[in-house]
């Protein structure tokens, strides 16, 4: 065994490691096959880096916008992270991100932090997300559900154990519930709609899982089960699940979670708006400015690929107007630092804007 030989071998191993990482550094960015080159237009010379963090629900939308954006501006480096809405806002007020993706409006506490750290922002709604309450296709007794029935089923420790506890005409069988994990925005949203106003918690004996595919399998595999998750998971598994129409408390009509009903705000209260929050100081940077304008202009066409529902054009127009006028602040927190109550369409008006 020769000392020189093995040191040479180890050196080869290390050098090959360096070469591998070295090669990757010199690889130009549009090296993959799917970057479209626009022949008749000169390549944009826009440069820079944009950092986006926040909701994993908004992440696919931002990813889709990024993908189209870098086809036009290949030298801009856009990083989209999906660490959750709360973490996204934390990064945003700590100046770790230029744009915060959010699946809910900013909370008063987060707004205060922004003010304290001197972060002013523009609030822009980009799409809708619907929450589906799904049952097994063999379930023939649930035709529609009201918010009261859902509260009976999901809220508190004394929640209904059997279907017959909700409605005496339903079978005398235990309800098996599948729900997303407590860390997810979907769980938060469901909790907010059903339990928060009464200062209660959702029942604790649900099967929780962060992986929505497992929830789909759970509901599809048990006749007496019910579950809730993002509308995208329902659309992808339409043949294995049945979505329950939800009675809108305003007009007492039950609506299916279809694109039309979500977009027209009829599928209430289980549709929610998705936002991006843009640091107004970052908006002075050319690359951020061009990107955000591109975002608002194209998000309605791109969000469907990202499993979301487009906003009505009037909302997009108002977002565009706010962006053009650089209207800073939020619509969802009062000047006294309280959350505003009400539906998105009612609150998203310029009178409610608080800097």
């Amino acid at each position, binding site marked *: 065994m020769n000392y020189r*030989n093995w040191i040479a071998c180890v050196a080869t191993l290390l050098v090959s490691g360096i070469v591998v990482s070295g090669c990757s550094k010199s690889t130009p960015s549009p090296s993959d096959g799917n970057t479209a080159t626009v022949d008749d237009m000169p390549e944009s010379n826009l440069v820079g880096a944009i950092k986006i963090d926040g909701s994993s629900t908004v992440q696919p939308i931002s990813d889709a916008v990024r993908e189209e954006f870098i086809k036009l501006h290949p030298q801009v480096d856009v990083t989209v992270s999906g660490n959750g809405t709360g973490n996204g806002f934390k990064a945003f007020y700590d100046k770790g991100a230029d744009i915060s993706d959010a699946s809910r409006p900013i909370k008063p506490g987060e707004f205060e932090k922004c003010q304290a750290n001197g972060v002013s922002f523009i609030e822009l709604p980009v799409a809708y997300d619907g929450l589906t309450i799904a049952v097994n296709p063999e379930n023939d007794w649930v035709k529609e559900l009201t918010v009261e029935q859902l509260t009976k089923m999901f809220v508190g420790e004394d929640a209904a154990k059997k279907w017959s506890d909700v409605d005496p005409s339903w079978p005398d069988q235990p309800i098996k519930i599948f729900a997303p994990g407590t860390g997810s925005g979907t769980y938060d949203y469901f909790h907010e709609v059903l339990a928060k106003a009464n200062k209660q918690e959702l029942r604790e004996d649900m099967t929780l899982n962060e992986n929505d595919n497992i929830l789909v399998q759970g509901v599809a595999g048990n006749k007496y089960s019910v579950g809730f998750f993002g509308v995208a998971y329902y659309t992808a598994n339409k043949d294995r699940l049945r979505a329950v129409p939800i009675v809108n408390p305003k007009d007492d009509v039950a609506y299916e979670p279809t694109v039309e009903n979500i977009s027209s705000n009829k599928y209430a209260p289980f549709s929610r708006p998705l936002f991006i929050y843009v640091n107004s100081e970052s908006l002075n940077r050319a690359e951020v400015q061009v990107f955000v304008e591109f975002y608002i202009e194209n998000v309605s066409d791109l969000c469907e690929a990202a499993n979301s529902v487009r906003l009505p054009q009037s909302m997009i127009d108002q977002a565009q107007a706010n962006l053009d006028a650089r209207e800073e602040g939020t619509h969802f927190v009062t000047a006294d630092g309280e959350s505003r109550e009400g539906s998105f369409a009612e609150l998203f008006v310029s009178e409610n804007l608080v800097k």
Partner: protein
Amino acid sequence: MNIESTTPVAPNDSESQRPVPEAIRQGASATTESTQNSQRRIRRSKTFYGICVSVSFLSIVVLAVLLISIAVQGRSRLTPTLLTGAHSTSEPASSGMYPAIIGSLSICAVCALSALPLGIGTAIFLEEFQPTNPWLRRLHGFLNLNISNLAGVPSIVYGLLGLSLFVFMFNAFGQIKVNESSGTELMGVERYYQILTLAGGGDSVLVRQTDLALPTITITEPIEAVDRDGNTFRLEVWDPKSGTPKPKDPATQHRTVRLGQSGGAYAKTSWYYFRLPFGRSFLAAGLTLSLVILPIVIIAAQEALRSVSPSLREASYGLGATKWQTVRNVSLPAAIPGIMTGAILAMGRAIGEAAPILVVLGATVAKNSGPQNLMDTVVTMPVLIFHWAGDPQVTYQQLAAAAIIVLLLVLLLMNSLAIYLRQKIRVE
């Protein structure tokens, strides 16, 4: 015949030896009772053999089921696009994992370059340079104990350690904040302002940044600017209120900006761009992973060094070699195959880790290239698989299965390279 050979090996050595002579004695007396006794023992032995076979078969079946189900699910997505493309949201079918493969390999390179020398060095110190002073011996034992304990710490804990140690560096070198500061930059960066020109479509010019404290600039008068080839030129200003018509000529438009147009800071970085703290970079991720595998490397190298026959070392000392000469010429060459086996296992673990990477780099999946500079973030294969597997669309789930196959193949390739090198060392 296999059965007989397995029996004495299985239980505790010293006790299992004893019944054998007894059995021989009983066999010598050749009574019916003793024949029954021996038949019973052989039956038991056969049962044990059966249990062993079925247990090992069970784990192979589980592995086979896993591999087959992944292969069936991912088969349709095992295309060249998978190896050349990047993650795509608008066209899931054209998604690929090229940036993730490069990302994982670069993280592994950083990890190997830092963990292997450190780990092997520590093992040499712990095994070859054992102190004689009782206090130092105690310290030595304490170190050994701690390293064994660290090997059992969950990797996410290392992720959190890496977050404060490498990503933030305890804020000792300043914080990385958008529009404000980039920590302590050491090399590879030039600072400019980027201003949009009249040409539109995101066309912009660069102006050198002289005062780092000013994140934005407002153009009120003609100023010296730089084009992308590094040539300087005079940037003209057009005032919409002055009545002069907006320039029509594209060449002029490229050199003209609106009066009062503001521009933000832009940092042009070279590949050797280096700053403290590391931020969410592949360097930080690689170093964090090296913390994860360091205990494994140390323990494997220690075992390998321990198994080198003491007579070899004593012969070396007998020839008058010093401690360092003995380690260099005798112990280490003899231990290299064992050390490399440990290194292979450790790198296999490093390439498959998702939890510490998620903590250090965040859940970024959309990136079209490998790292562009030392401080660039990367996508890694486990994080991409995690993201794809959780998506509702069937395409992504198939992609996840195909990506798992690619990950296994990359792992297999890395291991076979290491095994090849190990064999080569042995032969020579």
